[in-house]
């Protein structure tokens, strides 16, 4: 029972990690929370769903399409919503409001056009779990975990081993100085949004396979945010650790206390972290200077 709960927790934590990483990535460069990240995840889940069902593509192609498609959607959203604000050097409040506007728009647009019903993915993998002694590991959980690890590895490789990744890291320290060094801020922001969108796309599809797809699944952003705050906003390893921690905490609360109180617990966890360690587990507390 105990190990079973941990496995379930890791499985949901993996999905949280994929959203939280994109969230933290955008935060580290533009220092605002992209509330629309959850809706980007929803778009990814729907792209994956329709490539699987309408186009009858195999799973590997569907997940590639979802990844790239969601990344492109994220770039477009940035160009429409955030770029004008960036050029005008608007206060951060305006970014947050725009993000909220985008999130409302996308969510309700999906409700009106695609319909408010829950949709179930076709089976992409045999549902029969395999067992190690007493513990059952669902093939799906294993698949989710493996895909998450692969995506996060690619992301880490990109950020730490490529020229663009170095530019992103430079921009996260100081965008203005980075642009003086010949880094094109527009391009960096586009790449960041593509990466954030792509990971959200993978996460959305995995979430859809494990549970269902529905237009307001973007509410998962709250979970990603909690994970990112617990780990330290703006820190990628922090986001991953926070996500797994949150996933495991949630399954334990749902399993041993009450499933209705699950969200209350994760919210309390965030408030607790904010009070005890405002920078999160891995974050650094930066003092604002004039």
């Amino acid at each position: 029972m105990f190990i079973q709960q941990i496995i379930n927790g890791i499985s949901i934590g993996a999905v949280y990690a994929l959203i939280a990483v994109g969230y933290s990535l955008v935060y580290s460069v533009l220092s605002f929370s992209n509330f629309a990240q959850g809706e980007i995840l929803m778009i990814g889940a729907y792209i994956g769903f329709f490539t699987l069902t309408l186009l009858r593509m195999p799973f590997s192609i569907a997940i590639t399409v979802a990844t790239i498609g969601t990344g492109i959607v994220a770039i477009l959203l940035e160009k429409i919503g955030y770029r004008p604000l960036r050029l005008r050097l608007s206060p951060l409040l305006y970014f947050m409001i725009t993000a909220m506007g985008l999130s409302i728009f996308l969510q309700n647009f999906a409700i009106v056009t695609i319909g408010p019903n829950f949709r179930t993915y076709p089976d992409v993998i045999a549902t029969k779990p395999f067992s190690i002694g007493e513990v059952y590991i669902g093939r799906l959980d294993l698949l989710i975990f493996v895909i998450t690890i692969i995506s996060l590895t690619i992301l880490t490789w990109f950020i730490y081993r490529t020229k663009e990744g170095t530019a992103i890291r430079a921009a996260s320290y100081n965008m203005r100085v980075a642009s003086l060094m010949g880094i094109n801020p527009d391009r960096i922001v586009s790449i960041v949004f593509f990466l954030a969108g792509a990971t959200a796309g993978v996460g959305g599809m995995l979430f859809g396979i494990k549970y269902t797809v529905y237009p307001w699944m973007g509410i998962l952003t709250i979970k990603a945010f909690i994970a990112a705050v617990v780990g330290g906003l703006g820190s990628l390893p922090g986001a991953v650790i926070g996500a797994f921690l949150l996933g495991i905490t949630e399954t334990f609360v749902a399993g041993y206390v009450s499933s209705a109180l699950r969200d209350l617990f994760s919210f309390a966890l965030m408030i607790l972290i904010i009070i005890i360690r405002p920078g999160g587990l891995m974050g650094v507390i930066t003092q604002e200077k004039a």
Partner: protein
Amino acid sequence: MSTYFQGIIILAGINLIAVLGLSLLTGFTGSFCFGQAGFLAVGAYVSTLMTMKLNMPFLISLSTGMMATGLISILLGYPTLKLKGDYFAIATLGFSEAIRLVIENLDKVTGGARGIPGIPTRTTLPLVILMAIIATVCIRFYVVSRHGRNCIAVREDETAAQSIGINTFRYKQISFFINGMLAGLAGGLLAHYVGFIQPSMFSIIKSTELIVMVIFGGMHSVTGATLAAVVLTALPEVLRTAAAWRLVAYGAVVVFIMVVRPEGLLGSWELSWTSLRVLWLSSSSRLRLLRKR
């Protein structure tokens, strides 16, 4: 006056009260609150329970609802207002979801997801108008007072405000408290007007509606918020056929306003004798110019 028309005015007044608090908090103090529905819910449930379970007179249950909501906003603001805006926005959003969960799970007291039917309808048109006017006037004079100017300073640049000796945390807390009180009042009035409350009435959609009103009218203008609250409450009634698209349009409008005209409809224009005179003089001089041509 038909009851239907009266109903729209009452709802507009209730929305206005909730929007005024939000305008002070988000528009003037710069703390983005995305969980106004949670505060409405607290006000609505506390005042309803006072009326139904303890048989309190209406005004006492209303003020208890206000007090309870104000207290909760102080408690919630203490850990969250010290931090950056993002934390605050998500904390309020999380709070409003958490409140909904608590209400749904406290079956015995709140009736769970089914809600509480049969609340005595005590909210009348004159009462709502009176409350709305009092709230509008108070907020209108608060934002031009010394304290209001301090709030604006906090919004514009928190570090700079701190450096000239403004206790930024205190002013954010005051704004949050006033916002909570007004939301609690609006919630109580709403419960005693509709006569029925359930948790799903206080979802994110409600928070969205209210924050859109603030942004639409002009974040730095009480007049704008007032206008937006009235117009955006009445508009969906006129456009009943396109109800499904309402929230789609809200989202698009918010993005459009932020991209094209972030100051909203009225910007920072306020209704006052001076501003009216300026408007009158400029239009009459324009007329004179036209006649000369």
